[in-house]
């Protein structure tokens, strides 16, 4: 091991992190040996892994505030060692990975069971390789190590997606995921190829000093957007998310949605702000446009889904859209030298990264417990679970409120900062951009409001109302370990919402690194209670006092009413409106709840409806909603590939003599070429 800059004591952080990663891989190998011993894998290995995640988060938080550390691992091909480096950007994402995976790992300890696809030991190995891959992605300091880590992450998550590979739909989902992951990887590879500018040296240190012309820099940037956009789920490369997330086991979906999408955000930030030394104004606008379209598309589809996990997958697409909007704004401001605004936009983005990682993992894990308790993923067959699964229901409510961007939870902080960024924007050099910014702000506000609609639908249909099926009344609440995992993530969402100033302290180092400006100083000038990005006169928000005052109002009202009047309550059957034959099936279905949105945003969907006629003996109502992009892009491309393959198939006759003839002809042609 060769030391980089920095003394021995400073190297401790990176060494500890590498040890954690090594232990993760070790846990995976042990699990492989104990392939089918479910109890040992679940209760023995996963808790250790969760402890390791906590250690990772703690060390990474420390690493935020110290100078960058680097090291070289002599692994892999001779002459191509792995360069690893942890600066504050890597450390921030490592902290997010650690905090989130601590929750998912301890949850997995209670969740893993036999008979769900591949054996538990194998899933444990894939899970930990996946974690190690993601941690190495954010640590990699040369393109080679980056690609190895990136592919490890892609492949291990692919195997997690197809854990239940006997179902053909799941194999299809896995195939689609792998396909898009590789298209993305190809673009990333090309991007690094452009960045190294014919020097043959792929270390990030070398990529940083290359002076690319604006043309080649733009090509590298666009390739990065395609490559990382495919992983993040940017429209139109989003189609794999709603297929792969429902297919994967819930802890794996939680990791994929909560963390893996964020590694793509990390990589994009790394390339756009760190590796490329110039920025061009339209890059930011491109990200902004892609982000708005993705967010809008994602949220509209979220509201009409009927499958829990598909709904959450589309919600992830929406959130990635918002993150891209923030990134785009930051890039645009950075180009124009407005670094204070760039820092504000970047802070909003990075806080949203952490917030989304926490609440989306929580929601995905919650769907896992519902799935185990009821065997149902279809919203239309659930309902009333708050009475049989109170723990899961109340913890999910926290996640759903955070996902709706409501104060005083985590989703609101990032939304608030993002909207402030729009309001602070003044005097951009072109009037086109000055007009664009308010329109994007309006779109973001609309997306935030619609996400609340989607989350009310999700929580209301699954947990409230009456159970739509008989078997739901026997549903059992989450086990103790599962509860700990859910509660950890819920507590994280609450803490991030209540302590935005502490979060900004962490993010401050990252924004200093990327745009040379941070918010911590101005924020601290106004005390630790009030969050004010510039001055109190301009804008301020205090989640703690907000929560305290609302809680005080509630307590005061409840006590006063009880003292002045009384606290009695009587139970009775619900009012049936004079029609006694009501059943649980007469509640709104998920289709019904999404119907207004379907009508308003009809243009977004490719819809097929089967309506019953008045004379049907067995009336049947069915509505199929599909993504228009399937018909616009994917099916034409598929047809094209099919045709090309058929043409290529003509030369394949299956007779050995013909193939020998081909080789012979090739040889002759080559000889002719060389002979000249």
């Amino acid at each position, binding site marked *: 091991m060769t030391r980089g800059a920095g003394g021995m004591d400073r190297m401790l952080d990176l060494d500890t992190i590498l040890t954690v990663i090594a232990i993760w891989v070790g846990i995976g190998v042990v699990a492989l040996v104990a392939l089918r011993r479910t109890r040992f894998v679940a209760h023995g290995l996963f808790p250790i892994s969760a402890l390791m995640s906590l250690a990772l988060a703690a060390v990474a938080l420390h690493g935020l505030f110290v100078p960058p550390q680097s090291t070289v691992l002599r692994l892999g091909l001779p002459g191509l060692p792995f360069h690893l480096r942890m600066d504050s950007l890597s450390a921030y994402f490592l902290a997010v990975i650690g905090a989130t995976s601590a929750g998912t790992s301890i949850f997995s300890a209670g969740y893993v069971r036999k008979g769900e696809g591949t054996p538990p030991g194998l899933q444990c190995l894939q899970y930990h390789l996946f974690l190690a891959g993601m941690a190495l992605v954010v640590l990699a300091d040369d393109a080679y190590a980056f690609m190895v880590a990136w592919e490890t992450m892609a492949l291990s998550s692919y195997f997690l997606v197809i854990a239940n590979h006997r179902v053909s739909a799941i194999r299809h989902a896995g195939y689609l995921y792998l396909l898009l992951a590789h298209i993305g990887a190809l673009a990333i590879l090309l991007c690094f190829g452009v960045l190294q500018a014919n020097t043959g040296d792929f270390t990030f240190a070398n990529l940083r000093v290359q002076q690319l012309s604006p043309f080649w820099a733009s090509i590298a940037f666009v390739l990065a957007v395609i490559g990382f956009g495919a992983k993040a789920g940017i429209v139109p490369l989003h189609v794999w998310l709603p297929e792969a997330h429902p297919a994967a086991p819930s802890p794996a979906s939680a990791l994929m949605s909560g963390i893996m999408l964020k590694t793509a955000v990390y990589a994009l930030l790394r390339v756009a702000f760190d590796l490329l030394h110039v920025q061009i104004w339209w890059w930011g606008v491109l990200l902004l446009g892609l982000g708005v379209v993705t967010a809008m598309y994602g949220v509209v589809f979220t509201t009409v889904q009927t499958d829990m996990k598909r709904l959450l997958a589309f919600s992830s697409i929406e959130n990635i859209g918002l993150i891209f909007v923030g990134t785009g704004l930051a890039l645009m401001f950075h180009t124009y030298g407005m670094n204070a605004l760039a820092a504000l936009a970047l802070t909003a983005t990075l806080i949203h990264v952490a917030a989304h990682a926490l609440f989306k993992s929580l929601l995905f894990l919650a769907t896992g417990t519902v799935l185990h308790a009821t065997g149902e993923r279809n919203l239309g067959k659930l*309902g*009333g679970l708050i009475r049989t699964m109170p723990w899961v229901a109340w913890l999910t409510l926290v996640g759903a*409120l955070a996902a*709706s961007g*409501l*104060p005083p939870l985590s989703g*609101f902080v990032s939304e608030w900062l993002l909207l*402030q960024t729009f*309001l602070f924007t003044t005097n951009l050099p072109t*009037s086109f951009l*000055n007009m664009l910014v*308010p*329109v994007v*702000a309006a779109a973001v*506000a*609309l997306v*935030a*409001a*619609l996400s*609340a*609609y989607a989350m*009310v*639908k999700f929580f*209301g*249909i699954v947990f*409230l*109302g*009456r159970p739509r099926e008989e078997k739901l009344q026997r549903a059992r609440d989450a086990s103790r370990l599962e509860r700990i995992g859910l509660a950890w993530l819920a507590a994280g969402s609450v803490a991030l919402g209540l302590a935005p100033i502490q979060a900004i302290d962490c993010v401050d180092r990252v924004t200093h690194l990327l745009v040379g400006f941070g918010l911590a100083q101005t924020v601290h000038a106004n*005390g630790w*209670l*009030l969050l004010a990005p510039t001055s109190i*006169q*301009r*804008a*301020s*928000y*205090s989640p703690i006092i907000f929560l305290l*005052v609302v809680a005080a*109002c*509630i307590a005061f*009202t409840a006590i006063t*009413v009880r003292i*002045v*009047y*009384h606290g*009695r*309550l*009587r*139970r*009775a059957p*619900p*009012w*049936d*409106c004079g029609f006694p034959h*009501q059943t649980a099936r*007469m*509640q*709104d279905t998920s289709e019904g*709840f999404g119907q*207004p949105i379907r009508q308003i945003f009809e243009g977004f969907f490719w819809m097929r409806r089967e309506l019953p006629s008045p004379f049907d003996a067995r009336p049947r109502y069915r509505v199929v909603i599909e993504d228009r992009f399937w018909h616009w892009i994917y099916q034409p491309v598929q047809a094209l590939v099919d045709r090309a393959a058929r043409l290529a198939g003509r030369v394949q006759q299956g007779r050995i003599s013909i193939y020998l003839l081909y080789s012979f002809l090739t040889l002759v042609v080559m000889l002719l070429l060389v002979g000249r």
Partner: protein
Amino acid sequence: MLISPSAFLAQMLQFAVALAAAPLLTGWVNQCRAWLQNKTAPSLLLPYRQLHKLFYKEPVAADNASMLFRTAPYIVFGCMALACGIVPALSTDLPLAPVADAIALVGLFALARVFISLAAMDIGTAFGTLGARREMLIGFLAEPALLMTLFSASLITNSTSLANIVNKMAHSQFQLYPSMAFAGVAFTIVSLAENARVPVDNPATHLELTMVHEALILEYSARHLALLEWAASLKLFAYSCIGLALFFPWGVAEVDAPLAMVYSLPALALKLAIGGVLLALIETVSAKMRIFRVPEFLATAFLLAVIGLLVHGLLEA
């Protein structure tokens, strides 16, 4: 953060006035509407008597009602009370004003909306979910429209803090802002929709095809219902005060003149009384629209508010 005694007093007075006067405002609007429609007007104090009666009664909850159902009225009431404490109606020297700015205020309304919708879905009757769906439908368009309206004002005053918006609007030289004209129309539409008024909803009907707010609270009785009704009048009060703060910000006490509260209270009463008459007038001259026309109506408000922002960028920046 030091709180001066006068600021504390102003804050307490504002809470007290909002809680006490909100039902009166509702009663006043009902009375005006009855006069305009040639009906015998109910007493101005009827809302108070109703609240007293409801608090006195024994609540009946459905057998399967969960804790969410029972806590939601308190949460909604708490949110609306805080909203009334933030909006500068009597004084701009409010200690709670920096706690939540315009964006957080919109978030506060959204929080209340989400809880009341979830509570409506809790029992599992067809009416509850119908009400929840319609409420969220109205909300997802009204909320961004309200936000854009507030943004128009904050772009002019360079602040999202409502107290500062009022301060700056009241002190700047009188000037006509075209963006505020657009914002005004948008705000009127939004407040009609958000407060369950004709043409979006009818507070006086229980006809299943049309109702929104009444469907949401159909399962509630006694003290829970009282809290929700009180919260609804607090919401009307808060919205009226937002409207006054944005468009008629004169006659509000300020930091350096705490004694001005002596005249700011009657000024507020007068402004609210006129606002109530206008609201009753709008309700009388317009007809209830079909629920599927409501999104178009609200989308108009949203687009007007966005146009207001763009107009600000073009003409006023």
